């Protein structure tokens, strides 16, 4: 059967950073072309801001800019709706609302991608449904998902091995802890990464850790944690805490879950730790002051010991 070639657009923001390998390979196996938005820049942010409400977090504003960039370039846009990954846990309201926000703002074709563990829709089911919507059989979609999942796992393993090597570096090591979409975004985490590089710091990222060993580590500081993605961040901090010299938590203003869990980390984790809140008005001089003095503190402590 000849299929009409379709292009699916993927905004390079929010959950892209968690799942892009999985998505990329799923569509690759199905033979569908993907179009990515470009890396975040001022133009993307300005467009995103003009569509978002004021109260939205910086990362969501950025996301809408990425969607806008793709509008006239693709047939479908992949906008996940991820409510819960495990029972009795939630992601963040942005992720349940994302599909509806995009749908209302842009009236574009969106691929149905919905994960909601509380309603018994797991990742596999979501992918099969997504394949179906694009005209593929259940078997084909299930096969593509299985393949993609394997590649994603292998990729995660490689990243872990690579990062583990950095831990042996003689340089000062700082864990950048936060949501991947903040840490790896050009405009949100980018300036922080640049400053740390200039100071010759080895950067360890919280989205890469051994989740077999690190899973549930968060329970040592709080018995319940409602937000799955914040569990990940705390697990990573606890996983790395003996191997690093300090923690910089990065959050985009005004993130609700982070505002609570970061405060908890500051109080309960016994490591030099600071919280950097980034919004669209953040000045690089201000960031530099905070990061440089944080590094000075760690250096002074290391010399003292």
């Amino acid at each position, binding site marked *: 059967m000849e299929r009409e070639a379709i292009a699916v657009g993927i905004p390079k923001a929010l959950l892209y950073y968690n799942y892009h390998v999985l998505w990329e390979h799923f569509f690759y196996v199905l033979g569908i072309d993907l179009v990515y938005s470009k890396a975040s*820049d*001022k*133009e*993307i942010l300005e467009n995103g801001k003009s569509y978002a409400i004021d109260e939205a977090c910086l990362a969501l504003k950025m996301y809408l800019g990425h969607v806008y960039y793709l509008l006239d370039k693709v047939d479908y846009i992949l906008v996940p709706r991820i409510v819960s990954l495990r029972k009795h846990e939630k992601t963040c309201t942005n992720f349940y609302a994302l599909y509806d926000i995009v749908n209302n703002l842009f009236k574009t074709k969106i691929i149905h991608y919905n994960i909601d563990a509380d309603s018994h829709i797991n990742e596999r089911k979501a992918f099969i449904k997504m394949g179906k919507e694009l005209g593929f059989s259940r078997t084909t979609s299930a096969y593509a998902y299985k393949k993609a999942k394997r590649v994603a796992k292998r990729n995660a393993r490689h990243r872990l091995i690579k990062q583990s090597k950095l831990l042996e570096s003689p340089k000062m090591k700082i864990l950048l802890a936060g949501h991947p979409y903040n840490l790896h975004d*050009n405009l949100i985490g*980018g*300036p922080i990464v*640049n400053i740390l590089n200039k100071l010759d710091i080895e950067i360890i990222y919280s989205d890469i850790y051994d989740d077999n060993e690190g899973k549930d580590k968060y329970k040592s500081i709080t018995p319940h944690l409602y937000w799955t993605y914040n569990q990940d961040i705390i697990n990573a901090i606890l996983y790395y805490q003996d191997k690093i010299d300090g923690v910089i938590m990065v959050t985009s*203003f005004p993130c609700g879950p982070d505002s609570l869990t970061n*405060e908890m980390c*500051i*109080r309960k984790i016994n490591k*030099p730790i600071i919280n950097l*809140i980034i*919004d669209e*008005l953040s000045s690089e*001089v201000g960031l*530099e*002051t*905070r990061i*440089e*003095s*944080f590094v*000075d*503190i760690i250096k*002074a*402590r290391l010399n*003292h010991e």
Partner: protein
Amino acid sequence: MIKECYLGIDVGSISTKGVIIDKNNKIIHSSYLWTEGNPMEAVKRVINNLENDLECTNIAIMGVGVTGSARRLIGSMVGANMVKNEITAHAVGTLSIFPDVKTIIEIGGQDSKIIILEDGIVNDYAMNTLCAAGTGAFLTSQGKRLGIPIEKFGEIALNSSQPVGIAARCTVFAESDLVHKMQAGYKREDIIAGLCDAVVNNYLNNVARGKKIKPPIVFQGGVSKNKGVIKSFERALNEKIYVDKQGHLMGALGIAILSKNNSLGKLFSFKITTEHFETKGHTCPRCPNHCELISIYKNNMLIDKWGNRCDRGLE
């Protein structure tokens, strides 16, 4: 004999401070004046003042350090051998005068910070984040509304026996609350003492939130000149608050010490006060990031450029 000395400059949003120290970290000369929105001019005037003080003495400036929010710009301008953030500078400066200090409270024009020290090293710090409520700028603007020069604030506040409660979470709220209290007929000194309390409460609940404030406590920055605020801190913390009469110079002192420890042995020339410096800001057109680039020219020659996210901005 020529005496080796070091220059420290602290360029803040409101005031610019300069000190010259000797080899024993003692301040020999200092200058303190308003930045007035023009850091380059302010620094020229500070250096000019210091130069006049130095006349006919045998002093060689062997290092220059710059700190404060305009440190990058001024660092390039004066050719500093040390450019450092103000937290480190303040800690180093204060430690040289109070070696046992455990807590430094610093409230300046637009910044407020807390620095926690242990065994003479900085252990933790916090800084105000998105807004400047509860800083010197807040007090100055409220002073204007009341028609009282900021220098008299402290004296008047000390006369109050019953400070009025004022919401200081946000300058906008504080202002409407203040108007309300004035119209309701509260005494002026009680309102002013209330403002001082408001600054302290704001500080303790925002900047110092979750930090253990241990004595000895040193209070510095421009707001430490305000006796009313000192009294409010003493009331709230129930501890003695140390304020050095040179407390406003701690950043400049600290950066001078850091410059001394890192001296390249190059002689600093006072000539820069007569040289022509100019900055130009423009937006880099090379990609959609639109980085805001700043170029600084000395006698029409480009000497430094920054603001770029990538190397293309430097072309």
